[in-house]
């Protein structure tokens, strides 16, 4: 990667749930807005599976706007005129933080020698970053999807560290269906001969496998209604501009095929296939109740934070029932919790898209 990311090398070894440690782990991160002299205005934003630290502003690798540009910035719901926003790249990822593409002791990429990590390990890395930055208490921790899992894990495992916890379009555990979709993606990567047991950094990456993984996952981020509205059964226009027609072959005849292929190939330019394996594994291992004796309410017994849980009615990846399950546990733990199911047509991806009601909830909850 040519871009120079902001990096912090952790002074202490980072212990991992799997039993090992990461020595001299690096955390890449971005900050937005000024930190108040009393350090009281810090908000930690946690990114999703394929997200990164570039929440707002132009992305140095893709050149596109940050993934939550519409939510984070001056005068926006997460107002960087008032808040100091910190967004780390999770460990295991590929945008600067230590991950499978990082060099091992012999200088070669770790590849599959990188240890399997968990959501809690990612948060442990974020906490180590906050420690290094001298931020003891967060005004809030915010995340959607896998970012929401990190926010919940932080609240459960580092009680008192965040005063507000905003978990959007997320779950307290990965379901069998969630794991199943991830397994399809992993098998697509590992079935690509280019994957080569993870040892592809010197040659061609398993782009075809990673693209298929992304295509399958991308479907789970959308809704049936959304796909129908956007593409229906429309045929893809030909490259020379003439109207589309069935090819009686296996080109991308339908617009939805063309769209997915584009999503898949675009993704391979910015994401490392091994990181995709490791991060999806971490999500599949996520079960907050299991970490706390099987009772989700126990996870939040001493959390001492205000919670806000948001789901979307068209999200079938982490459906509202999962949020209700979480809210039930928070109520049982006596935690102050708000919950709202917002109506939006975009499926799971609604948290990233234009949903004005979400803006109001985010701005209102963060105060």
């Amino acid at each position, binding site marked *: 990667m040519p871009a120079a990311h902001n990096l912090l090398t952790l002074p202490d070894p980072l212990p991992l749930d799997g039993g090992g440690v990461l020595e001299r782990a690096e955390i890449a991160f971005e900050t937005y807005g000024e930190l108040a002299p009393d350090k009281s205005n810090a908000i930690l934003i946690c990114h999703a599976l394929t997200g990164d630290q570039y929440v707002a502003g132009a992305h140095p690798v893709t050149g596109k706007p940050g993934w939550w540009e519409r939510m984070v910035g001056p005068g926006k719901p997460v107002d960087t005129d008032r808040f100091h926003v910190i967004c780390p790249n999770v460990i295991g990822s590929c945008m600067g933080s230590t991950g499978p593409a990082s060099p091992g002791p012999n200088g070669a990429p770790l590849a599959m020698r990188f240890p399997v990590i968990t959501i809690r390990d990612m948060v442990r890395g974020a906490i180590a970053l906050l420690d290094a930055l001298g931020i003891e208490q967060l005004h809030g921790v915010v995340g959607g999807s896998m970012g929401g899992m990190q926010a919940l894990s932080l609240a459960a495992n580092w009680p008192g560290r965040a005063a507000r916890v905003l978990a959007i379009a997320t779950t307290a555990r990965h379901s069998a269906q969630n794991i199943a979709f991830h397994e399809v993606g992993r098998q697509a990567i590992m079935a690509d001969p280019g994957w080569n047991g993870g040892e592809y950094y010197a040659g061609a990456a398993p782009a075809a496998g990673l693209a298929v993984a992304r295509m399958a996952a991308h479907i789970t981020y959308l809704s049936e209604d959304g796909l129908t509205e956007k593409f229906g059964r429309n045929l893809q226009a030909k490259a020379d501009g003439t109207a589309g027609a069935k090819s009686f072959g296996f080109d991308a005849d339908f617009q939805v095929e063309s769209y997915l292929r584009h999503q898949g190939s675009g993704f391979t330019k910015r994401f490392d296939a091994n990181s995709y394996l490791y991060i999806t594994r971490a999500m599949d291992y996520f079960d907050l109740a299991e970490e706390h004796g099987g009772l989700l309410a126990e996870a939040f017994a001493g959390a001492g934070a205000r919670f806000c849980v948001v789901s979307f009615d068209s999200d079938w990846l982490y459906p509202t029932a999962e949020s*209700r399950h979480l809210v*039930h546990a928070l109520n049982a733990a006596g935690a102050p919790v708000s919950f709202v199911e917002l109506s939006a047509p975009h499926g799971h991806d609604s948290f990233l898209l234009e949903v004005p009601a979400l803006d109001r909830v985010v701005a209102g909850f963060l105060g």
Partner: protein
Amino acid sequence: MSSLRPDLAVIAARIAPDTRVLDVGCGDGALLGSLRDAKRVDARGMEIDAALVAECVARGLSVVQGDAERDLADYPDGAFDYAVLGQTLQTAQRPDLLLGELLRVGRTAFVSFPNFAHWRTRAALLWGGRMPVTRALPVSWYETRNIHHVTVADFEALAGAMGVAIRRRWFFSGGKRLAGSGANWRAEFALFELSR
């Protein structure tokens, strides 16, 4: 607190400071906000309408979107000092079960509802022969959310049958408090303070 609806203003005045309150069907959170600001109450709400929940969250209140008849089951016994059900009872599928849940999660309950035996309602039905549309019940029968119309006498009978103790009662007409005599004729709205 002067801007609160009359029944909510009475409830706000009755609730002791530094207590735990659940407002079921809390709407835009007017009562909860007032209790939090004036009495340092740990104020929680439940509301079925997502837009109203979003409004509450924007006011910094802790409000859960949910259907009281399904989701009150999530709360432990006696989780609240007070449970409030303001002008929502008559919209329930099973008001009796809802009342039971209210007094399971709250040690004291406040319940208010429009009184269907008010003289205007009686007159409209008796002389017009049609379901009443009045100041207190402004919506036609086919689109009203009120599916279980109830009178002061009905409610008192239900409380008796359920073994619920009526601690106090208030009656309202035209936004003003009424004395209790002839309430089943004269009251547009009633408010009861209940305990197990």
